[in-house]
């Protein structure tokens, strides 16, 4: 029986959600839309933009060790902080993913309907690890519009994976996506508890 004041005096709890998807799908935009801080970069001397533009083969192994990682932060209450980490956009940085995803509550996989296949690696990755995720279709201007069910089919995920349209530029839309993801995290946990409780 702890006093209610414990909540504010206890060490803050930090949780994290990973924002993923192909290169240029709007991960940084998504994080900026809701973060209290400007998305911060670490290892900032090679940004995603320059990775896409530069012929990185010309500089040999250097780019494999130098990569921009952006993240944002939201204070949910006095003792609860949510960090959003964007995954590096390109496959060659996949070695960083384990580190990013370690301990994550869940993940948002952003989808660009012009390049749906770019989201396959992220979907595979989170499915393999059993990390709860949400498919968020970012409606780019001029991109073909598909019914969400079609996008789900194209990505080959089951009906248990939530899918929503999400304008990564709009705070409300980003927030709704995070709510959907968190509801999925909660559902999964409750299902696990219900399945595990009678047997063990």
């Amino acid at each position, binding site marked *: 029986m702890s006093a209610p004041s414990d909540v504010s005096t206890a*060490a*803050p*709890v*930090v*949780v*994290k959600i990973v924002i993923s998807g192909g290169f240029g799908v709007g991960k940084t935009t998504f994080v900026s839309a*809701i973060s209290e801080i400007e998305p*911060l*970069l*670490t*290892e*900032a*001397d*090679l940004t995603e933009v320059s990775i896409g533009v530069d012929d990185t083969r010309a500089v040999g192994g*250097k780019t494999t*060790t*130098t990569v921009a*990682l952006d*993240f944002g*932060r*939201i204070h*949910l*209450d006095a003792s*609860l*902080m*949510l*960090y959003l*980490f964007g995954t590096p956009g390109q496959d060659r940085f996949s070695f960083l993913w384990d*580190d*990013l995803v*370690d*301990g994550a*509550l869940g993940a948002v996989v952003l989808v660009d309907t012009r390049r749906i296949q770019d989201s396959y690696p992220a979907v595979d990755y989170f499915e393999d690890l059993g990390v709860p995720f949400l498919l968020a279709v970012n409606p780019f201007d001029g991109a073909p519009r598909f019914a969400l069910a079609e996008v789900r089919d194209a990505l080959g995920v089951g009906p248990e994976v939530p899918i929503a349209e999400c304008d990564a530029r709009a705070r409300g839309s980003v*927030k709704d996506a*995070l*709510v959907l993801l*968190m*509801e999925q*995290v*909660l559902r999964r*946990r*409750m299902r696990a*508890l219900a399945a595990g409780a009678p047997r063990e």
Partner: protein
Amino acid sequence: MSTPEFRPPDPRMVPPWRPPAEQRRDVTPPEEIVSDDGVIRPFLLTGGRTRPLRDGLRLETLVRAAPAALSAPLRFELLRIVRFCQEPRAVADVAAHLRLPIGVTRVLVADLAAEDYVTVMQPVDELPLALIERIVDRVRAL
């Protein structure tokens, strides 16, 4: 008809030898060393070590420095971490603030933790259901 190539140079025309320190100064300003080559050289700060002394330092792991550590005889970047972490900061925040790669930051933070200059919050593997419910509520209220 000239045969200059076989003539030894007149010693008066040989330019005076410059000490290497002076030459170095016009070639590489030290600032460029860090920003130019993201990873290899920052690991000089760790004495070349790439593995932290302790595991469990996630990107979002909070680090908090003891006020007493402010007066400890720490070298520059360790002191910056101690100053920055007077309130709890995530490892990723520390890396961004010091403009260091995550790997280097982890090694430095682990060194400080080994000497008890900072405390590191233990990561929780399975969040309690009540906490997940609280997160859902708080995100809805954003």
